[in-house]
């Protein structure tokens, strides 16, 4: 018996504040006007996508002590724009990135529960952490959290939020006018949670929402992050979009589920993926090269070099060879508010690799940066891209993809118009929504209430 075909999950990431987003494209519209968000969400819903996704960063990025001005800057408040989008969509899931370091569980839980009510069960939370004093300067507590405690706080935050979500069972509101009974349970919403980071108690003031609690996403990639996801997340927003890398990540994370008593299908792996479509594969390849050049302007190339070299390179010629000096080793002081610089674990070795490659291939600094950053995941005709996506999902490299268009707000349109129908023809992507909640789109069961889970043990 052959393995049944897996159903693909698709989501749309609103173009973000990094150089993937090409604001210089003549078709690029506003990144802040609500009309752009409406266009994007309506396109995703027309394509029967599972959800749309919003990232968030709580301080404008800086490089060399100045606000970074080469990428899109500025975005809306996540909860507020998602609540407004709930008014113009009916089925699309609404996923927001919310930080567990510079928020408090009671407030975040009531915002997610409210969003879930106001969208009839379509809310999802991508839980992220930060620790840096740089971001903390915008908040009451400043940089209070040690880096190695950020996951600990995130786990406690999530556990506290779950306690709050589960403090209402869902059947307490009687609203019986004749008997004069509004609440069937005088203690509805009672909760208490304490650990090293939190000590809170009282009554939660948002009754249980349609999904019980939002769908939980986790984005961290470290061993700790993977374990955190395996223990309790519903989905992972991953970076592993290629076949081998994806399969390895998929097997690793899904392999961790059993020890938490969870099934293989209770945690979805959804890598971020960029795409460039053309009428032919050759045309798409040509377009992809143009996009990459637009993503790495000469000025952007210099800034990327500075992020690795950890020093001022403003006088460096982007159309000449790579810098001959070595990177400054130690804490990265040049770029702030940017998670990606932490990926360069050995900057000197990376610089040597880059120099060797630039010399071997005759690349300028800018051309080298184009080669080592921003490679598109899917490039080709709609048929080629549909084949590739289907293959990756069926081969267990992922359960689907979170697509990241490079133009706001219309960059998703060609994918929905051309690729989605091909996937629907194959029977591996829905032709219409079958359920109403995001949990239903993702094939996830309603969460057990804490009380039920405890009594089942």
């Amino acid at each position: 018996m052959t393995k049944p075909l897996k159903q693909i999950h698709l989501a749309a990431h609103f173009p973000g504040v990094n150089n993937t987003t090409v604001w210089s494209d003549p078709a690029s519209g506003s990144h802040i006007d609500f009309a752009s968000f409406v266009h994007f969400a309506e396109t995703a819903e027309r394509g029967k996508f599972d959800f749309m996704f919003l990232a968030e960063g709580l301080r404008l990025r800086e490089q060399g002590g100045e606000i970074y001005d080469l990428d899109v800057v500025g975005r809306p408040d996540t909860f507020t724009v998602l609540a407004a989008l709930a008014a113009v969509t009916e089925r699309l899931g609404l996923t927001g990135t919310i930080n567990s370091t510079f928020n408090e569980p009671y407030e975040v839980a009531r915002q997610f529960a409210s969003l879930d009510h106001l969208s009839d069960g379509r809310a999802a939370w991508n839980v992220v952490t930060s620790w840096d004093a740089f971001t903390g300067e915008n908040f009451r507590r400043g940089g209070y959290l040690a880096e190695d405690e950020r996951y600990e706080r995130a786990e406690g935050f999530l556990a506290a939020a779950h306690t709050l979500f589960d403090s209402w069972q869902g059947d307490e509101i009687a609203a019986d006018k004749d008997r004069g009974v509004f609440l069937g349970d005088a203690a509805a919403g009672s909760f208490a949670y304490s650990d090293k980071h939190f000590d809170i108690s009282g009554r939660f003031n948002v009754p249980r929402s349609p999904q019980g609690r939002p769908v939980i996403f986790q984005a961290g990639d470290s061993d700790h992050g993977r374990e955190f996801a395996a223990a309790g997340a519903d989905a992972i927003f991953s970076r592993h979009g290629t076949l081998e890398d994806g399969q390895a990540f998929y097997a690793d994370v899904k392999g961790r589920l059993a020890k938490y008593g969870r099934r293989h299908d209770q945690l979805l792996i959804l890598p971020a993926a960029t795409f460039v479509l053309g009428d032919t594969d050759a045309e798409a390849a040509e377009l992809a090269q143009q996009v990459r050049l637009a993503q790495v302007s000469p000025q952007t190339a210099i800034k990327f070099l500075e992020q690795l070299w950890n020093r001022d390179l403003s006088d460096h010629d982007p159309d000449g060879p790579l810098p001959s000096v070595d990177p400054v080793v130690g804490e990265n002081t040049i770029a702030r508010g940017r998670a990606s610089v932490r990926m360069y674990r050995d900057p000197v070795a990376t610089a040597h690799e880059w120099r060797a490659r630039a010399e071997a291939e005759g690349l300028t600094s800018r051309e080298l940066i184009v080669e080592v950053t921003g490679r598109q995941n899917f490039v080709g005709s709609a048929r080629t891209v549909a084949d590739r996506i289907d293959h990756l999902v069926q081969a267990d490299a992922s359960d689907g993809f979170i697509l990241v268009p490079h133009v706001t707000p219309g960059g998703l349109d060609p994918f929905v118009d051309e690729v989605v129908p091909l996937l629907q023809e194959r029977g591996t992507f829905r032709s219409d929504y079958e359920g109403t909640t995001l949990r239903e789109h993702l094939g996830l069961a309603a969460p057990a209430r804490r009380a039920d889970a405890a009594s089942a043990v």
Partner: protein
Amino acid sequence: MPGSSVPLHLAVALDGTGWHPASWREPDARPADLLTAGYWSDLIGEAERGLLDFVTIEDGLALQSEHPLRADDRTDRVRGRLDATLIAARVAPRTRHIGLVPTVVATHTEPFHASKAIATLDYVSSGRAGVRIQVTASPVAARHFGRRVVPEGGGGTDLLDEAADYVEAVRRLWDSWEDDAEIRDVATGRFVDRTKLHYVDFEGRWFSVKGPSITPRPPQGQPVVAALGHVDAAYRLIASSADVGFITPHDAKETTAIVEEIAGHRAGGTPVRVFADLVVFLDDTAGAARSRRDRLDEVAGRALRSDAEIFAGTPAELADVLAHWHDAGADGFRLRPATLPHDLLQITDGLVPELRARGLFRASYAGSTLRESLGLSRPANRYSTAATA
């Protein structure tokens, strides 16, 4: 004291099924729908049909209680609510003219988050956002956050001083982007002109905020800030920090006194728009309104108590009171419907036509933003280099 120099403004304060604790038991009440988007869209759509300036939406960081500082375990009152800012955002795309003024509690929350949330509400409503700033001395709410201990008796003045700092930080963040900061200059590769993004560097007793905001300056520049006050310390907050003040006088003379008190605290610039709050029971005859109030009081087991004047009568009688108080200095009125939707419909179908017949209320929305409805200009940016060049 001459009367208010501005046309009479009208707002409605929405809270659950209305401001009477037994309102949820009325035949037309929808207590089972309080957590749905449709409930709020219907009410706010009705208020917009009546051309009201704005609605406020109550909120809180604790479950409702009969006691302001303690929890109760009552089961015969409405309990549970949704986040007011998110209700406003959910309704914004479905309305076009009415201002949306959710309550934000300053005491335990982050000014940085509140600033971008209200800025975003202004974007999704195309310039109709406001925010009503509230403080809470409740130890119950404090335990929900676990971050500070509320002193016995609440420490009231400190909370108001903190709220003033909060509004200052929020306002600076709204101005932290100049309107023309986004330049998209392909030649230099720059999306923004960073000389037009500003650190706000707010430092106060309770917190400091660096800035700039992550959200560009909202359509109104400064969304409308409102606060309710009953005592001089709160009037000072209104005068120093708000565009709109809600007050609770019980007659025309008291109205004049409070309006003058607030004006006396105002340092200059645009006067605060002062709205008098009234709880209203409205029916076609005064007798019907009074007997409805009596009936609801009986159901609730006690007479309605309120910080605001309680009015029971016909829309025409209420129009008399409002005209009189407007002459006494109130710029507008925030009516708290005793029951919903009944008293809201009496406002839109009865009171508004009555005021209009007297030439006291608009026949159409004057502008598209809340500031325009209130006759407030779009403020210059405090950080603008262009303005001083």
